[in-house]
């Protein structure tokens, strides 16, 4: 029995993985950034399938709207033609491919031997609002207030650090 959601999942994950492969192999960096946008969008659709709508919206706004655009800016600032004549991969790339395949095989093996890997999603309780729960959890002092505030301090530090590092000293 094939469910429609399974078809959606297979199509979306195939497109996402294909786009991710293009990201790591394309010569032209601007094209790689655009493939990255497609891969991030596929992940956003998977978040929708996981009933995490807030994260799908945040993925589109933060990753595609900010991070990918920042990448494109950096590509344009660092290369006039965004294309290098030489090879795009370094000389040890076969070792890198072997390591990546080993990691993938190991994780797949672990998933296969784990007895809860085939579990199906339990129905959400009646009247359960994940977004409201998340908001309350993030600002409750006895739950996740401290990690949340530390994350915001990290963002501020990264902001100041980025400005200082990229500052053009005369």
């Amino acid at each position: 029995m094939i469910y429609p959601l399974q078809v959606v999942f297979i199509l979306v994950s195939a497109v996402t993985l294909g786009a991710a492969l293009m990201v790591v192999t394309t010569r032209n960096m601007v094209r790689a950034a655009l493939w990255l946008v497609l891969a991030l969008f596929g992940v956003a659709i998977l978040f929708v399938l996981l009933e995490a709508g807030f994260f799908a919206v945040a993925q589109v706004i933060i990753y595609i709207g900010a991070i990918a655009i920042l990448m494109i800016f950096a590509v344009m600032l660092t290369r006039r033609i965004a294309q290098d004549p030489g090879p795009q991969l370094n000389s040890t790339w076969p070792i890198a491919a072997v390591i990546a395949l080993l990691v993938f095989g190991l994780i797949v093996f672990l998933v296969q031997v784990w007895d809860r890997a085939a579990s199906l999603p339990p129905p959400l309780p009646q009247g359960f609002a994940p977004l409201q729960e998340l908001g309350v959890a993030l600002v409750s002092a006895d739950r996740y207030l401290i990690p949340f505030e530390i994350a915001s301090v990290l963002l501020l530090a990264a902001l100041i650090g980025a400005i200082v590092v990229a500052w053009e000293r005369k």
Partner: protein
Amino acid sequence: MIPLSWYLIFAAALFSIGLFGVLSRKNAVAILMGVELMLNAVNVNLLAFWRYLAPENMAGQVFAVIVFAVAASEVAVGLALVISVYRRRQSVQADEINLLKY
């Protein structure tokens, strides 16, 4: 109904592709793109575990929020470093940035 293992295997594949990109690309911006792919795979895993194993416990979602914040700061600092290095050495190829090598 999609089994949990599908999400885990998808995330493993995405993580491995990102890992390959980080280890093999020469361009520093492309290395950052690989890191973004890996962080996305982690987020898929976190939200899948939240939805399938503990939907009442918000820890998975909170962790995903923090991964978002860390990814944003990582890419901001990383691209600032790339631009700074480009100004000094006129290159963003990772194998040409070897001032600290010897």
